[in-house]
């Protein structure tokens, strides 16, 4: 335990050695992470904006007129349990009432209400997201069409196409782009930290020569790497937040009305944690090389 505390302390003290090298290293990490974060922020907001247009894709379902209302009611209850956002239902009577209300004056439906020609209808609304993809749209469509008594299902093909295109874009471009960006950031940060640690090669060599175990040598290096990642990460998030405050409302005017959102805490957390992880990884690999060489 005493040794553990000592090693932890060494890892922290290492940051204080070679101060200028540390300042440069942490600045480089901060800057690269900031650029990556900015990119992430823009992608995130772009995604949000597009996603908001594809919420509420609608299917309009028409039953055969005169089909048993009891049957239709039980189908409606069934549909409510599907993965949809909402369903608005119209019995033939309600449809007729709507029709009457929309006509001005006091039109008497009289004989129509006795022999209502209108079908039962429903508007099923749902949204597409990346996990379920367009399979969901297809599945809901075919399930609706297979319900007995359903005459036809109609939808707005433009809206469907938009949603499908975006889904394709996110799965083929969005995630690969984010993964690529993380890779680049990781490489740059890892290399910066590695350069920083090569400065301490003599010390690693001497520790090994006087009988330090490799864990003893590596652990403070890992702590230093993790701290460098953490400091760089926190600084870059602060910088990002500042920039966000400045640009938040630049698109917030008519007719666009888009205010730029900050990354949710979960994303921010993952972002910083990833940098800490990169710091630890690069120290681990560098330390491994160095200990072997002595």
């Amino acid at each position: 335990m005493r040794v553990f505390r000592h090693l932890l302390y060494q890892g922290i003290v290492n940051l204080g050695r070679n101060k200028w090298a540390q300042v440069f290293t942490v600045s480089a990490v901060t800057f690269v992470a900031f650029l990556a974060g900015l990119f992430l922020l823009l992608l995130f907001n772009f995604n949000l904006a597009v996603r908001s247009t594809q919420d509420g894709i609608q299917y309009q379902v028409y039953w055969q007129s005169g089909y048993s209302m009891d049957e239709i009611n039980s189908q409606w209850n069934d549909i409510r349990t599907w993965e949809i956002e909402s369903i608005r239902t119209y019995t033939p009577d309600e449809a007729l009432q709507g029709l009457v209300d929309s006509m001005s004056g006091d039109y008497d439906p009289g004989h129509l209400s006795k022999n209502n020609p209108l079908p039962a209808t429903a508007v099923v609304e749902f949204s597409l997201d990346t996990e379920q993809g367009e399979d969901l749209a297809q599945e809901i469509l075919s399930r609706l069409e297979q319900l007995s008594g359903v005459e036809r299902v109609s939808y707005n093909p433009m809206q469907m196409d938009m949603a499908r295109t975006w889904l394709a874009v996110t799965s083929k471009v969005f995630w690969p782009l984010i993964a690529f960006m993380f890779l680049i950031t990781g490489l740059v940060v890892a290399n910066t930290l590695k350069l920083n640690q090569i400065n301490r090669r003599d010390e690693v060599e001497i520790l090994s020569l006087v009988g330090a175990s490799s864990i003893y040598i590596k652990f403070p290096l890992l702590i230093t790497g993790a701290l460098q990642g953490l400091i760089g990460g926190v600084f870059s998030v602060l910088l990002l937040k500042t920039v966000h405050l400045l640009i938040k409302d630049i698109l917030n005017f008519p007719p666009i009305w888009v205010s730029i959102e900050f990354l949710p805490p979960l994303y921010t957390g993952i972002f910083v944690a990833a940098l800490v992880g990169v710091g630890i990884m690069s120290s681990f690999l560098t330390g491994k090389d160095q200990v072997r060489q002595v």
Partner: protein
Amino acid sequence: MINVRYLSHSFGRYWALKNITFSLEKGDFLFLTGPSGAGKTTLMRLLHGSLPLQRGAAAIAGFDLKNLAPRKRYLLRRQVAIVFQDFKILPDRSVWDNVALPLIVRGMVKNQVQKRVRAVLRGLSLDRKSWCLCREISGGEQQRVAVARAVVVNPKVLLADEPTGNLDKKLSVQLMEVFRQFHVHGTTVVFATHNEELIRSQSGAKVLALKDGSIAGANWSLEETGV
């Protein structure tokens, strides 16, 4: 304590050591002599596990160098201390920090560390330089820091590569006294030097002369010892 059989070592195509065979008992004091380039440093580094064993066999302080996993090497280095010809001390740390390093690395408690470091620094007349940074002291003082760092751990085997190279006569004698003290208490010492006078001053020591990587002579029979 040290057993070396048919040990050879090459750097590229150049054989720095050829077929070296000798062994030492616990408590022996060996002078390793020979002109510059004879292979003294190479032999020391092999015995300390700082160079990989290429040919032949060597055992030291109970460790078989042939089968020593890199991750176990630190255990060897806790028994076998070395004074390098080029010191290998940390220039940006104090004399005290450098000498305390091997003890801290072993997880020794603080007041034990203080006691031992203080005693060793006094023995090498470094006590007044304790808090100086190593890059600010003279070459002779740096050399003594390197020696202090090696002896502070009370090693089973002490390897010293020309530790008097930068010292005047008076300091050489003082340093020799430190080595003798350890030797008396049972430490096996391998001392590389080409100072004839120093060698003559230690009666009873073994002497092994190297030349161009081969054994050129020894003052004891190499065949009767070892296996």
